């Protein structure tokens, strides 16, 4: 997995709550058997005015000028700012894949849906939970005349921005280590092979019906 240590970049403010994974990456793109190729279809229904299908030339499609990511000042943004319950809905890991491939490294919101939150960490995308008021402040800063740059430091768990904006965030210790070191979680779990085997032996005596071939 890609390491995440610190990210400094422009903030794109997407002022909506309950952004679901069907919006992040619509279902027609889930027919792919690859992990890549989703960035161009991120927020497809909002981003383009014409309907999208996999395999088409997306550069030839009509962009929706009202959608925030199509605003020139947010080109190259690496930090996505949103409202409550970001990533609700399906378990599709295509959602963090699409966000990352578009170029975002961090999503900041007051809350995230559990499965999306979990999937993000597996791919080196950092979801950061800040308080409602901190998110409000960031929206105010990010929706001004020009785009603003913010730094997200995973080591210090601090966010700094313009007008002396600072905020700290919590993160689970295991996830933090995995991100900082870019660890292979499967490899890590396989270090517990003995414990898994011991569990199976014990459990097969307790509940043998679970282990019939």
């Amino acid at each position, binding site marked *: 997995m890609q390491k995440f240590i610190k990210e400094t970049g422009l903030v794109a403010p997407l002022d909506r709550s309950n952004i679901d994974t069907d919006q992040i990456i619509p279902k027609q793109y889930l027919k792919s058997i*690859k992990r890549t190729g989703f960035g161009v279809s991120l927020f497809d229904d909002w981003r383009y005015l014409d309907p999208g299908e996999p395999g088409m030339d997306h550069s030839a499609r009509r962009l929706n000028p009202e959608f925030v990511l199509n605003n020139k000042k947010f080109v190259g943004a690496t930090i996505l700012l949103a409202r409550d319950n970001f990533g609700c*809905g399906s378990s599709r890991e295509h959602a*963090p894949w699409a966000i990352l491939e578009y170029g975002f490294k961090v999503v900041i919101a007051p809350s995230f849906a559990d499965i999306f939150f979990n999937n993000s960490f597996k791919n080196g995308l950092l979801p950061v939970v800040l308080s409602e008021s901190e998110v409000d402040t960031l929206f105010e800063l990010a929706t001004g005349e020009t785009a603003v740059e913010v730094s997200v430091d995973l080591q210090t768990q601090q966010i700094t921005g313009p007008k002396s904006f600072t905020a700290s965030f919590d993160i689970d210790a295991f996830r933090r280590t995995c991100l900082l070191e870019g660890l292979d979680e499967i490899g890590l779990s396989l270090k*517990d092979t003995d414990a898994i085997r011991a569990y199976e032996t014990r459990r097969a005596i307790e509940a043998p019906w679970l282990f019939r071939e």
Partner: protein
Amino acid sequence: MPSRTLYDKLWDSHLVTQRDDGSALIYIDRHLLHEVTSPQAFEGLALAEREPWRLSSNLATVDHNVPTENQSAGVSAIDDPTSRLQIETLDQNCESFNVTQFKMGDPRAGIVHVIGPEQGATLPGMTVVCGDSHTATHGAFGALAHGIGTSEVEHVLATQCLVAKKMKNMRVTVTGPLGFGVTAKDVILATIAQIGTAGGTGCAIEFAGEGIQSLSIEGRMTVCNMAIEAGARVGLVAVDEKTIEYVEGRPFAPRGEDWVRATEAWADLVSDLDAGFDYEIHVDGTLIEPQVSWGTNPEMVTGISGHVPDPQLDDDPIRRGAIERALKYMGLEPNQPIGSIHLDRVFIGSCTNSRIEDLREAARIVDGKRVADSVIQAMVVPGSGLVKEQAEEEGLDIVFREAGFEWRDPGCSMCLAMNADRLGPGEHCASTSNRNFEGRQGAGGRSHLVSPAMAAAAAIAGHFVDVREWL
């Protein structure tokens, strides 16, 4: 031992190791796979030269992407080459890794959350995971079941475990008795409307109370299925006699001495009387009426006697904005009566409502009637080949066809519109599925979540009606 909730017990019995950093390894008994979220996981496994840890735990089927017409013609007859490739890829992966699969056209195939319980592959006390958020369905059996992403699909294949952190305990107590003509779907929609789409985030929800106990096992599956729509990855119902009766004799269920021992163990799959919950929610089941969603997320729901809300009456600016945006997308006016919403299409199916009882409930309403002329399409998509066979044995297919419904082959179909079944832009659909997100059932489509009975009645009337008046 201190008093424990059902979730606590399931967690404890699957804990492999607790690590110092607060994370834990949890053992997975049953891993269900389908074509959409597994190809990249199998690829990862192959690239790392890893083998599945315990083959017999895995059971695969195709559901999200399959056509619901002419499945007997086989995979090679699927028009869309990307869909075909994805289905063929699962076939190949299952073959090369030796995973049991019910392929398209096999009567045992169908929606993964229908076939698990149908086969007895889902058992009380198990941990069940699948790369699909509606895996919570299986919690209806007192199993710890939740959706996972593709990285975790690979992790489970490779290690038979997941890295997890214990969730909080939430109990939703639905008092009873439920009113006449009120179904499991109405109970869960009303619950989500009450607690919100993020109400259960971070929690395992145990559904309890007379309003839940009185439901059939299939009804409980409908309730647990939509726990995720309230933000909770896990929905649970305690084991009772109905659970045991449902499981007995199914192909994967224990037999003989195993059955005796299993049922003894399953008797403990209830929360202890004095167990503590982090959150307690009470839903007055006696007040629930048939529900209809009017907006673009599953908390935007009201009763059939209700109205579309007026955003001007909401003080919270974020919520007001969300309602305004939803009404614009849905093409609805503030204060419009729910009964005045006209339907273009009707969809009866999905992992929420495609089981035999759902089809019986709908067929009872449409029997001898005709789908309204204004409805372009009304379709019934059974949850599995076996559900389809059972319905045909009971003559339900004839009831539906004679009323003007299309009778399809099993699959997820218009619930997420990955295959050819979808809404056109601006079309309103009465749908027994679980998500009314923008574009969920087709770009620009407008979904209204309802029970099978309400969908059936709407198909006949051409607009929403109170199905209780038809019973």
